[in-house]
């Protein structure tokens, strides 16, 4: 886990690495790695790496980073976990490679020495790393297939800087704060900043499943080595067992294998537990994988006690079924108000979510956990979202009218002019966007519509940002190649947009702020490879395969419970918070029917812009 940082003064005119700057970047991420810190500089002072460590595997000092290869030619600074590092290590040792530590970090060094950049294909896990190759005089940056771990870089034309957090790069003091209109537009449209953009022009996210070389001419283009769409395409082409029993067996094996891999650690691994199938089934599978002691944590709210929304009783039932040490942590309105400034501070990039993860991570840390398993990714993998139903339906209905030129713009214009306040802005866009998967998905997930942006972020930013982001093309780009089934398409869209830019980012900042590592066994490239064909065949029915995977079945009421979505009283708390009133300045946000997320988004952006 941890926070990584680096500076490479690649240009001949650039000043050597400023150690003070590197330390400021690194130490801004102290919460990501409270257990240790390290730095390394090349002899000519043109390259420097920094590292903050959260010890999870090989707790000894030998595991400290940045780590150098035995021959001194390679140096790595790494954030994440390589879950198959033992297998990789065994095969590297078989080739005669000598190891000095028990870490997954060292495996990266040897694997790179063996395979070069192609090493990324062998890695199972979540990772972001910077690797200095002294012979090549070049820096390699890489990020895991799904983008679980973040990695940002800034190339000003002389010097490249990278770090796990945007705010850390800024803390160094030498990266431009010029705003990136596409990042702001993306945030307003989607509720999270879509990679590769950030809200700063100079800072970019290395896209999920990509690598990047930096050499004497600077950062090259990023190269994508993994595509979710591609896996669904292959899965649709492949045959999967027709027999239901066999499917169940395969699903269980794949899921158990993923959970087993995600338990690799030299410290206890706990779990977040809600009342839903995903987290419950994972706890059951942790049991099946042989874990005896499991600490589980549920967040509850006083307001919900005794009501349908209260997850605590069912979560407790699941916990007792699997014999975990269970804790229910009650969050009060007062605590929320106290934490709010710290939440906004820890929020690395503007986002409308992450508050729940903040509290459950805080609770997990209070109960002594350093690592927790989360059910994140289940709705993407098993088709749990309403979008799996709605988007294909809209596209079917609107494909023909939506493709008529000008009609979409015309109706949009008519509606927004005729009913500027009273009509749901998305309804006005139905004809304009509903006819394609990317467009309909945007309607389903969108927060604001493009024509609303001007009032929020100003005409210039909106115009420049829309021109650069091209939101619909941006979404459509993840559907290359295009899966044949609607399930494959929506699963790809949800995993490559919402999960990547929103859920995973929020989980990262909100958990790392509490020095907690969150592991997500349902977000795993190997599991996807094994499961995609079954999922493509079963569509949204595939969740029952997860539900019936644990040897000890989940309580029936968990499986039968209608999906409510995760609700919290946080909305009403926010509404009552008198520090959060900025949105009243924007007329379109004062309408009674205005969704709270829209007001909150404006508040977050105002806070971020002021910071």
């Amino acid at each position: 886990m941890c926070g990584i940082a680096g500076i490479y003064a690649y240009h001949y005119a650039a000043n050597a690495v400023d150690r003070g700057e590197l330390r400021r970047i690194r130490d801004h991420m102290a919460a990501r790695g409270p257990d240790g810190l390290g730095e390394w500089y090349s002899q000519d002072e043109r390259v420097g790496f920094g590292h903050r460590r959260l010890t999870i595997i090989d707790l000894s000092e030998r595991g400290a980073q940045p780590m150098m290869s035995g021959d001194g030619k390679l140096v790595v600074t790494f954030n994440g976990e390589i879950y198959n590092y033992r297998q990789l290590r065994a095969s590297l040792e078989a080739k005669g490679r000598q190891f000095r530590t028990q870490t997954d970090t060292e495996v990266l060094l040897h694997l790179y020495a063996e395979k070069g950049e192609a090493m990324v294909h062998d890695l199972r896990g979540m990772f972001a790393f910077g690797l200095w190759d002294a012979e090549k005089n070049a820096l390699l940056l890489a990020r895991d297939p799904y983008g679980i771990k973040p990695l940002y870089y800034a190339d000003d034309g002389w010097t490249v800087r990278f770090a796990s957090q945007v705010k850390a790069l800024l803390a160094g003091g030498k990266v431009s704060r010029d705003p990136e209109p596409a990042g702001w537009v993306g945030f307003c449209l989607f509720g999270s900043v879509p990679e590769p953009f950030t809200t700063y022009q100079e800072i970019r996210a290395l896209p999920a499943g990509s690598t990047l070389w930096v050499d004497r001419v600077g950062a090259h283009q990023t190269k994508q080595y993994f595509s979710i769409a591609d896996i669904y395409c292959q899965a649709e082409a492949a045959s999967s067992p027709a027999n239901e029993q066999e499917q169940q067996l395969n699903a269980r094996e794949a899921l158990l294998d993923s959970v087993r891999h995600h338990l690799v650690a030299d410290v206890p691994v706990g779990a977040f537990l809600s009342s839903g199938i995903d987290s419950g089934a994972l706890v059951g599978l942790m049991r099946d994988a042989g874990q005896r002691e499991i600490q589980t944590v549920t967040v509850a709210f006083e307001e919900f006690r005794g009501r349908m929304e209260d997850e605590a009783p069912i979560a407790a039932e699941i916990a007792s079924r699997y014999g975990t040490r269970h804790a229910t942590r009650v969050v009060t309105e007062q605590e929320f108000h106290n934490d709010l400034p710290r939440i906004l501070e820890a929020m690395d990039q503007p986002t409308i979510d992450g508050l729940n993860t903040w509290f459950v991570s805080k609770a997990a840390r209070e109960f002594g956990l350093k690592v927790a398993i989360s059910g994140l990714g289940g709705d993407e993998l098993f088709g749990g979202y309403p979008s799996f139903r709605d988007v294909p339906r809209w596209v079917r209905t609107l494909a023909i009218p939506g493709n008529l030129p000008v009609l979409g713009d015309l109706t949009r214009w008519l509606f927004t002019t005729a009913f500027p306040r009273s009509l749901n802005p998305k309804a006005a866009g139905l004809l304009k966007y509903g006819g394609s998967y990317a467009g309909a998905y945007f309607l389903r997930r969108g927060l604001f519509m493009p024509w609303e942006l001007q009032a929020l972020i100003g005409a210039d930013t909106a115009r420049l940002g829309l021109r650069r982001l091209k939101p619909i093309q941006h979404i459509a780009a993840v559907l290359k190649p295009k899966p044949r089934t609607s399930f494959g398409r929506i699963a790809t869209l949800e995993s490559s947009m919402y999960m990547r830019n929103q859920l995973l980012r929020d989980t990262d900042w909100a958990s790392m702020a509490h020095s907690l590592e969150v592991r997500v066994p349902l977000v795993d490239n190997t599991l996807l490879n094994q499961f995609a064909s079954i999922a493509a065949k079963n569509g949204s029915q595939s969740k029952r395969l997860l539900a019936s995977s644990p040897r000890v079945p989940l309580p029936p009421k968990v499986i039968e419970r209608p999906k409510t979505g995760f609700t919290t009283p946080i909305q009403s708390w926010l509404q009552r918070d008198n520090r959060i009133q900025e949105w009243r300045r924007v007329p379109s946000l004062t309408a009674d029917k205005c969704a709270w997320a829209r007001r909150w988004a404006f508040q977050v952006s105002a806070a971020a812009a002021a910071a």
Partner: protein
Amino acid sequence: MARSEVRVLALVTEAFGGRGGIAQYNRDFLSALAQCERVGEVIVLPRFSSGSVDSMPAGVQQLRPVENRHSYSLAAVWTAITHRPIDFVFCGHLRMAPLAAVISRVLNAPLWLQIHGVDVWHDLSALQHRSVESATMVTSVSRHTKRRLLRWVGIDPARVKVLPNTVESQYQPGPKPGHLVERHAVGGKNVLMTVSRLSRLERYKGHDLVIRTLPRVLKQRPDTVYLIVGDGDDRPRLESLAAECGVAKNVQFTGSVPTEELPDYFRLADVFVMPSVAEGFGIVFLEAMASGVRVIGGNQDGSRDALCDGALGTLVDPGNGDELASAILAALDNPTRTEDRTTRFKPNLFREHLTALYRFFSIQTGGPLWAGPSLRREEMAMAIPNTFRRVNDQQCR
């Protein structure tokens, strides 16, 4: 099968026989480009060329300048057609980018675009946008200019590289030349100096601020003279400003100075000061520093690059007269000449980097310009966007 020699068409405002920073940059650039491995010929079509051109560097051929804008476009197209095959097009100014982009498209030859500064301070026209986005690579004189371009244009930042100005060897430290001390009667005086055109269109250089700051400097160092080197239509305004501030006696205008005399002029200065707000790079800073003169520049534009973020000179907020006055006084308190501080901007480094950029450019184009054996396989693998995407761009069945 690629030919063994690469031929380049360079469209520039001015290069050989031209004056000023951009012409100098183009000369350095094109001479170095002609030296790159496999480059056989660089055909330069300038719009202006004031002076006579005695000798051209090897491999560079400069055609007659064509001043009229429309005639220039026709001449460029004509040159492109008559000099085929052209392997790539170099465009030395953003204003010419649309023309260069059309030619590059017609010839199916990649485009290398150079930007300097003032051309990207404001949003570009739609045509310029598309031209920039069609460029395979853009080189910028400074980080600042790069940043400004990226503010407007949605080009992949990885395709925008920085290649700073370089400085020629005639600028070297030395004693104050006696004839100039005499000519300007500055014997025993502290000389502040700015070198630039004095154009009404370029009022960003900061002369105003220096003049307004002068009374504060004179209070402590009455024996100070501000020498404004260069000429232009803004001079009368600056003269009356000096009078208005009561420092007319301490401000001298040299008028236009021939290029050959410039090295001597720089050596006449104690402090070179130019608190500009819109410098693309500011080659004059390099010339002053190479001459061993202390420099003061603005902290908000390309001057940051010339002064290497303050490592080579003092950066001040160009809106802050107090800051400028203290910087000038501090520099005057330390009258010893420095060594030549521009070693990191020397032509050999410029040439080496240009060669590296040329390689990068060639690889971006898919490699037809660079099929040479010296490109190692792994370099190729490093730079070519992997085939993964290309293979998968088709819809799967």
